[in-house]
């Protein structure tokens, strides 16, 4: 007998019989089309889409094709932060939906994803920024999220070792989202893959999409390195490679691919118990359960498919860290890496039909895709199953650029490297 479900009972049961009954978390599936749905891209978003399609929308015959291996892309390359502290009406309901799904995720998929609602604290350094954060906090509360404004004393009580009296950027307070926090990123990929597999989804690794077959204006299947796979509906969730895949359908997207670097230090005793972001530069930091400081900053700022960046941004990130938290100055960097960001022209994502019948697009996550994983999967599944947008994702239309209905959270205009 094989053990299917993770629980205290199954743990004890397997411990008593030498751990001989555990099943692989997911089968090594090979293509066996035709499928009702094919999701191209086995990252967090693609796997979540397949899971919710099978679980909530009664989808049958679903496949996820992934060019590499599960957990090898951005879902294993991020800084694990989850939050729903957005301002704009098009964004906040979606991210709050995601936050609520995170809160119930582990029970839902029967997998320990180490969801840790340790709080996300965004610091402000002057009056104008304080006013902007109050507005943001009010917007969050109006959309059912949580937000608490802290003054400098309250921040000092929480994190006493910050650089409060910096001459240029004194810390005046912060906006705290107590329900925000971190989630173990690999476990999200593995957990969704396992849960989807248990519902019959074929997860086909090492299978790269090489072309799209269109007959009479309708997408009927994909060419892959493992041959042609027929499908009723095809969903693209390819993150940094979205433009390449969309080009197979003759589409140009409002997206540039950029590289974002992230960093982990050597392991230290616990001293940062929430996620902290610097308000006068771009720097965010948290401490993992292993003790490593996980931090990051800006994207490198030029088009890249290289999954590695350059030194000026590393220097800039470390300067941000030193300005905020001088005590980390002698901590050694253990490793750093880069991931491909699908930077959209307004900094917000796209979950929509494409002009090709039967072909759907989930892209433009910029460098905020991880926190969106559950809601992105749910909304994309909704769109694929029902052919209409999920109520919290109605603003994420592909034609919003032509209509002038952009969702520009940072107010930067059509320049992807500034979002």
């Amino acid at each position, binding site marked *: 007998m094989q053990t299917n479900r993770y629980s205290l009972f199954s743990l004890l049961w397997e411990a008593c019989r030498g751990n001989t009954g555990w099943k692989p978390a997911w089968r090594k599936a090979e293509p066996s089309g035709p499928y009702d749905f094919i999701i191209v891209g086995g990252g967090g978003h693609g796997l979540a889409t397949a899971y919710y399609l099978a679980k909530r929308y009664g989808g049958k015959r679903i496949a996820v094709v992934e060019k590499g291996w599960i957990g090898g892309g951005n879902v294993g390359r991020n800084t694990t932060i989850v939050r729903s502290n957005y301002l704009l009406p098009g964004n906040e309901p979606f991210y709050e939906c995601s936050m609520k799904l995170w809160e119930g995720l582990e029970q839902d998929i029967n997998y320990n994803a180490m969801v840790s609602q340790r709080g996300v604290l965004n610091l402000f350094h002057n009056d104008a920024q304080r006013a902007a954060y109050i507005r943001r906090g009010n917007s969050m509360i109006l959309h059912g999220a949580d937000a608490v404004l802290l003054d400098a004393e309250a921040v000092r009580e929480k994190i006493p070792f910050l650089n409060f009296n910096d001459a240029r950027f004194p810390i005046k307070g912060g906006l705290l989202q107590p329900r925000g926090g971190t989630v173990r990123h690999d476990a999200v990929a593995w957990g969704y893959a396992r849960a989807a597999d248990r519902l019959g989804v074929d997860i086909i690794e090492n299978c790269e999409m090489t072309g799209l077959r269109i007959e009479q204006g309708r997408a009927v299947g994909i060419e892959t390195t493992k041959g042609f796979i027929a499908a009723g509906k095809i969903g693209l969730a390819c993150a940094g490679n979205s433009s390449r895949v969309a080009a197979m359908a003759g589409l140009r997207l409002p*997206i540039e691919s950029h590289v974002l670097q992230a960093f982990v230090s050597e392991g230290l005793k616990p001293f940062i118990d929430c996620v902290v972001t610097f308000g006068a530069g771009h720097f965010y930091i948290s401490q993992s359960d292993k003790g490593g400081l996980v931090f990051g900053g800006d994207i490198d700022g030029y088009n890249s498919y290289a999954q590695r960046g350059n030194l000026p941004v590393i220097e800039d990130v470390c300067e941000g860290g030193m300005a905020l938290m001088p005590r980390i100055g002698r901590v050694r960097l253990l490793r750093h890496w880069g991931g491909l960001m699908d930077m959209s022209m307004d900094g917000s994502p796209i979950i929509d039909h494409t002009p090709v019948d039967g072909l759907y697009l989930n892209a433009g996550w910029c460098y905020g895709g991880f926190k969106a994983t559950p809601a992105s999967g749910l909304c994309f599944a909704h769109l694929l199953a029902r052919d209409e947008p999920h109520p919290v994702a109605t603003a994420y239309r592909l034609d919003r650029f032509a209509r002038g209905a952009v969702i520009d959270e940072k107010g930067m205009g059509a320049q992807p490297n500034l979002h």
Partner: protein
Amino acid sequence: MRLTCPSCGSRGLEEFTYRGDASVRRPAADASEQAWVDYVYLRDNPCGRHQELWYHGAGCRSWLVVTRDTRTHEIFDVRNARDVALTERQTDAGQGEIA
């Protein structure tokens, strides 16, 4: 990554600012709305050779057209954007005479 500026020689990346795809061209003022949407929002975003605009803000303040591989960050060519624009204008004018 370093860029070889035609005026200043080989310089570190931190002296430059990136402005994106250099192959897009502003449409005529009376062009269709779709032409303007394409110009402002849509990009080829190639995986491979990419022509892009860089500004040498901490050097000679020239705008440059750089040809670079987005997979390897290898630089193939750096030219003054002014020269590229002038060449283009001459080519366009030449074509105009033929027409």
